[in-house]
Structure formats: C-alpha cells, structure tokens
C-alpha cells in the first residue's frame, strides 16, 4: 500500500474539500473567497464558455436553515436587476447536498482596498452616490441589505460599484404603495423621482408597534428576534440589539453613513456622537451625522433621500441635513454660480471703468 506523507494527505484533504461539481455544467477553476458560512469559487460555465462565480454553503446538512438562506439570497438578488447588484444566473444543489448559486464573476477591488490609496474627495463621493443609488433601488423594491460594509462593496476598473453578499438581506412587506415606488425607480433608471418607501411615511403616521406589524417581513423566519446579524461599526443601534422588527431602510442608511465616514476619513466611526469631523466640509459632516443618528426617525428615510442630499452637496445646492449660516449660503451660491458672478463682476467693472474714464 502506498504510504501518504502528511503533506500529500493534507493536499488530498484539500482536494476533497473542493466541491464536487459533477452533474453540473460547471468546472472548478479555484477558490475566489471565503465568508462566514459559504465559499465563493471561480468556475467555468461549460455551456456558455464563460467564467462565473459559484457561491456554496459550507454545510447544508447540519444547518438546513443556511441552505434556505442561501436560496433566499439568490432569489432576492435575482429580483434586483440593477447595474450595482451582481446578477444571479442559476441556483442548484450539489451531489453532497450543498446548495449553491451562480452569479457573475466580479472583477475589481473591495472598497476597503480601493480606499487605501484615498482617491480625490470628488471621486470618493461619486462612489458613495452610486452606492446610494444601488441601495435606493433595493429599498424601492422592499429589500434591505443589513450588512453593508467596505468588504461587501466592490469597485470595478471603471469606477462601477457593486454591492455584494445579500445573505442577511430582508424583504419588507409589499403594498401597492411600494410597488408604485419601485416602478417609479425602475422607470427612472436611477432614483430621483419623488418616490418614498414607507419607512418615513409609516413612522410619521403610526407608532413603533404598528410599524413593526406593518413591515413584518414575510421570510425572516430564518432570523430569530434577538439574533444579531451585521458588522460592528456599521450596525444601527436597532440592529445591534437584534430588534428585527424595527429594522427597515433606515438601518441601511446608518450603515451608509458609516461607509461615508470611512470614505471621508479612512476609519470607522465609533458612534455618531463620538465622531468628530476633521477637515470635512460641514454639510458633508451633517449628512454623516444625520445618517448615523441613534434615533431611526432622525435619519434619512432611505438611501434615495441620502443620495439626493449627497447630490445636493456635489452640485452646490443646499444640503437638507445642514442649516447653513447666511454667509455660508452666500459663499455656496457664489461658488455654484461662479461663472455668472464673474461675468456680472466683469460687466460691472467695465461699467465702472466707463463711468470713471468716459470715452471721448
């Protein structure tokens, strides 16, 4: 019998750990990434002759709810057809019982890697704007991500932003109002239409208990109340205590606020109160503070609203989160209308010159 040295034994064990893709249309190319409960493999779709990513649960037998969660994740993503969300192509089960889904192979860098070089502020804010657009699309379709963090955001070679890992995403109950909101966002391509996901309207017109009932999700049986899902530093207070029935679009807004702080400063805020903006324009700091507010009601209603405020800042308009002083308003308007102002000043200068030095 052939003796197998330790190194060979380890290699063979690693081989066995690789998914057995026999019976599927995919051929294994390598491991692309590893998460808490699943691994992502680079595989070749032998029928379409293209490389794709296959996300596979580590274990389906001992924890069948994880299999359900993965399928649920795939179905949620499949419904969200947006350039900022990785499309799902297929879902299935391997001979060993493990569930997988196949998605587009994303090429790019994780946001935290991308930020190491600290690109110019305007570029970082443009990324943030795209991120808000993607989340606004999901919110309009009644889906919240619940685990937004730099590791779950990919930046492509052309600055495209992709939101990954919807494994703990939550679907909110649909109503006709939500469908209208989603339709408006769909037709607009990017959010911008005056549509509102009911987080804001609900909180405005009903109490917390009613709101909990109104948005009780239909498929969150996989997440027990009190279970904490998310990442410290990005989790909203209601998420940190596992108050599942209180989580809504504003839970994602909190994480977006933390992401904005990371983009501006390079570090994760300990809390909204503890965070001190250093060298950050005051309106931007106000956007961060509003998104990171401990009280849900004090945050932006959803990602669309936050994205709109970011756009306001980028285009020199007034930011809703910031009450500016008169001189600040004047300065902002002057900057925004710099060209027109310069023309007027030039005209006045010429007129003044003509007045004092009349042409004979």
């Amino acid at each position: 019998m052939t003796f197998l040295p330790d190194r060979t034994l380890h290699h063979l064990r690693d081989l066995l750990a690789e998914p057995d893709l026999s019976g599927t249309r995919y051929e294994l190319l390598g491991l692309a990434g590893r998460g808490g409960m699943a691994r992502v493999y680079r595989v070749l779709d032998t029928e379409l002759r293209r490389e794709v990513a296959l996300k596979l649960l580590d274990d389906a037998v001992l924890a069948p709810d994880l299999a359900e969660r993965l399928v649920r994740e795939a179905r949620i993503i499949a419904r969200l057809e947006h350039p900022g969300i990785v499309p799902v192509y297929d879902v299935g089960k391997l001979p060993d019982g493990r569930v997988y889904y196949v998605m587009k192979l994303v090429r790019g860098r994780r946001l935290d890697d991308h930020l190491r070089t600290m690109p110019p502020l305007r570029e970082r804010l443009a990324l943030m704007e795209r991120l808000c657009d993607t989340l606004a699309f999901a919110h309009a379709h009644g889906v919240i991500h619940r685990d937004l963090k730099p590791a779950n955001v990919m930046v492509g070679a052309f600055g495209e932003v992709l939101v990954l890992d919807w494994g703990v995403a939550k679907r909110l109950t649909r109503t006709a109002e939500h469908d209208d909101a989603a339709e408006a966002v769909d037709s607009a391509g990017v959010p911008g239409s005056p549509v509102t996901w009911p987080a804001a309207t609900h909180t405005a017109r009903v109490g917390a208990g009613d709101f909990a009932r109104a948005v009780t999700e239909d498929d969150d049986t996989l997440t027990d109340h009190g279970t904490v899902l998310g990442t410290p530093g990005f989790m909203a207070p209601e998420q940190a205590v596992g108050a599942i029935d209180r989580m809504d679009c504003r839970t994602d807004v909190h994480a977006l606020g933390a992401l904005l702080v990371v983009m501006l400063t390079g570090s994760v805020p300990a809390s909204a109160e503890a965070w001190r903006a250093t060298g950050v324009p005051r309106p931007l700091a106000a956007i961060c503070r509003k998104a990171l507010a401990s009280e849900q009601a004090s945050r932006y209603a959803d990602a669309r609203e936050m994205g709109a405020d970011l756009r306001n800042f980028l285009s020199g308009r007034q930011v809703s989160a910031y009450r500016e002083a008169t001189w600040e308003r004047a300065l902002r308007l002057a900057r925004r209308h710099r060209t027109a102002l310069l023309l007027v000043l030039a005209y006045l200068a010429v007129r003044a010159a003509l007045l004092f030095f009349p042409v004979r």
Partner: protein
Amino acid sequence: MSGTIDTDGLHGAGGPFPPTRHSAIGRSRSLDAGERQRALGALIESYWKPAYKHVRLTWHADHEEAQDLVQGFFAHALARDVLQAFDPARARFRTWLRLCLDGFVSNERKAAGRQKRGGGLALLSLDFAAAEDELTRAGGAGVEPAAGTAPGDVFDREWTRSLFELALERLRRRCGEAGRDASLTLFLRHDLVEDGAAVPSYAELAVEAGQPVTQVTHQLGWARREFRVQVLAVLRDITGSDEEFRDEARQLLGIVPT
C-alpha cells in the same frame, strides 16, 4: 415568499451522501461465516496501522512490544467477539475501538504478560515492518507526540491516513477495471507528489502526456471524483452507523460542522 424555502426541488439535488448500505461493522455480525470473516478482514485492514502507531507513539511502546500488543488486541477482539459490544448510539467506532485498545494495552501492561500475549490465538498477517518504516519516514519513531496532542490525536491522524491509503488502492483497481490508467497516472503525478517535490503544472503534464491541457484537466477531474467516491466507500465500510458516516464525511470533505 413563504417562510420556508424548499431546497429539495433544486436541480441537481440528490441525497447528501450515497444511500445507506451495511458497513463492515454491520457485516461483521453476519450469521454467514464467510461474510463475517471478510468484514473483519476489512476492519483490521483499515485499523491496524492506526492502532500500531497509536501504541508506538502514545503508549511509548517499542516496535516489538507495539507489534505484540496490536496482534494481541485484534486476535483477542476476533476471538472474543468484542465487536458485538459496539453500540453506535454511544460513540463513533474509531473512538470506541481506540478506547478498547487503550484498555487492552493497560491491562496487558499490568499483567506484564508479553509472553502470554496472543497465546493460543492465531497470529494475523500484518506488515509491522512497513508501519515502522512509515513512522521513521514521517519522523515519528521514538519521538514524543507534539505538545498539546490529545490522547486520540495520533490514532485519528493515522486513521485518516489509513483511510486515504485504502481509497487510493481502490482507485488503482477502479482505474484498471475502467481502462483509465492515464487518469490514474495524472492523479499520481499531480496530486500525490512526495514531500518537497515540485508539483507539475497542467501545461507540463499536457506536454508529458502529449495531450491538450483540457484533456489533462478532464482526466484529472475524473480521477479526483473517483477518488472521492472511493474515500466515501471506504469510510462507509469502517464507520459504525449512518450518522457516524455522515459526520466523518462532513469532516473529511472539509465541511465545517456548526
């Protein structure tokens, strides 16, 4: 969307593991003497090396003593129908067997009856010299188990090695029967390289075999899948229950139990 998602209907869905069949442990209780003998033979084939190395390293027995003890243990187990006492509900088979072995060694040492060991019992044909050679090659002869090593670690590690070695032998036979010698060669060249040897790339193997790379990866893929099948088949044979088989398979296949 309902609260419960049915994952059974997904395409490609099969049973998580091969269908249950009787293991060698189950067959060792057969009323058919021939069947019983073959099953016991399969169990000894799988377990004697882990037992020998366990006694050598954990009990610090020298080659002679370990050889006598392991011979005595299996002869004793066969003669006294010790395997009948195994209850899959209480322990996994390999843990139970190791504890039986430990009890046997302890008793034998107390009785200090090396001369009596195996007295009157048929000696089994086991290649202890080869096992000793493996220990030497692995640098394990005469050394203490690494600090922090639990009592069963040596046995468990050698059990895995024995399992893989048996699966490899079965793979050789399977490749011969299926006329897939080329696949076996590629598997041996790429996945069974000796410690320190360079692993050839697919492109290098393709040049060696005079085949396109796609053909090489295809054949290698077949051998790997077949090896996996053989590992599971051996595992099925040497585990005491379906649950134990699943648990062991989960660990061997790299799936992390939660």
